[in-house]
């Protein structure tokens, strides 16, 4: 299930939803990305996330569907927030369950790598010099190489 939302999410709740009532899939992997106070050496006091409504959900669904073709997964949950966020707040949640440890690790990492390169989100940081669009990192692009 995929959500793109302005509201904060609750990791504890998401964990319960992902694992509750399931005694078949023994392995669960979660990634949580949060707003941090420093990025590439700049002090950051907050973040605002723009996206492309209509395309965002489709892009995330395509990524999750690719992951499901590659690995035997049970439940997959992706949440990405948009709008303004304070330091320490959660931005993104990816949760994957599977009966295979490897599959859940790799699928969660795959989803994050593709989300970072293919999902239409743009971060604007609040810094001492005012709002600044975040530069894409070559490292994030190179990360796709391992899946090809």
């Amino acid at each position: 299930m995929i959500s793109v939302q302005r509201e904060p999410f609750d990791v504890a709740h998401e964990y319960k939803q992902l694992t509750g009532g399931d005694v078949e899939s023994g392995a669960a992997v979660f990634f949580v990305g949060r707003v941090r106070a420093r990025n590439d050496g700049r002090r950051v006091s907050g973040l605002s996330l723009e996206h492309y409504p209509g395309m965002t959900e489709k892009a995330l669904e395509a990524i999750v569907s690719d992951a499901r073709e590659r690995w035997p997964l049970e439940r997959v949950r992706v949440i990405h927030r948009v709008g303004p966020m304070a330091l320490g707040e959660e931005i993104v949640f990816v949760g994957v369950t599977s009966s295979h440890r490897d599959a859940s690790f790799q699928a969660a990492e795959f989803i994050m790598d593709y989300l970072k390169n293919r999902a239409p989100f743009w971060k604007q940081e609040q810094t001492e010099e005012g709002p600044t669009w975040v530069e894409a990192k070559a490292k994030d692009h190179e990360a796709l190489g391992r899946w090809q």
Partner: protein
Amino acid sequence: MIEVRFFARLRDQLGCDAISIESVEQDSVTLVRERLVAEHPDWREPLSQSGVLFAVNHALVKSDHVVKDGDEVAFMPPVTGG
């Protein structure tokens, strides 16, 4: 008509959220960009930056992708979510 949309830093650079342009025979993302630049010469550089992404009807495409009347074309800077 083709609805063209711009996002994030690119939108700020162009000073434009969205613009409608006529569709032409054998249209493509590249041709759409050329018509935009012909109309707004100062858009050439921002729209030609390396890494700029193109979407047609909410799916990422290459610049030679065919564009049809009624399509929504988006020009976007490299994405930075997650």
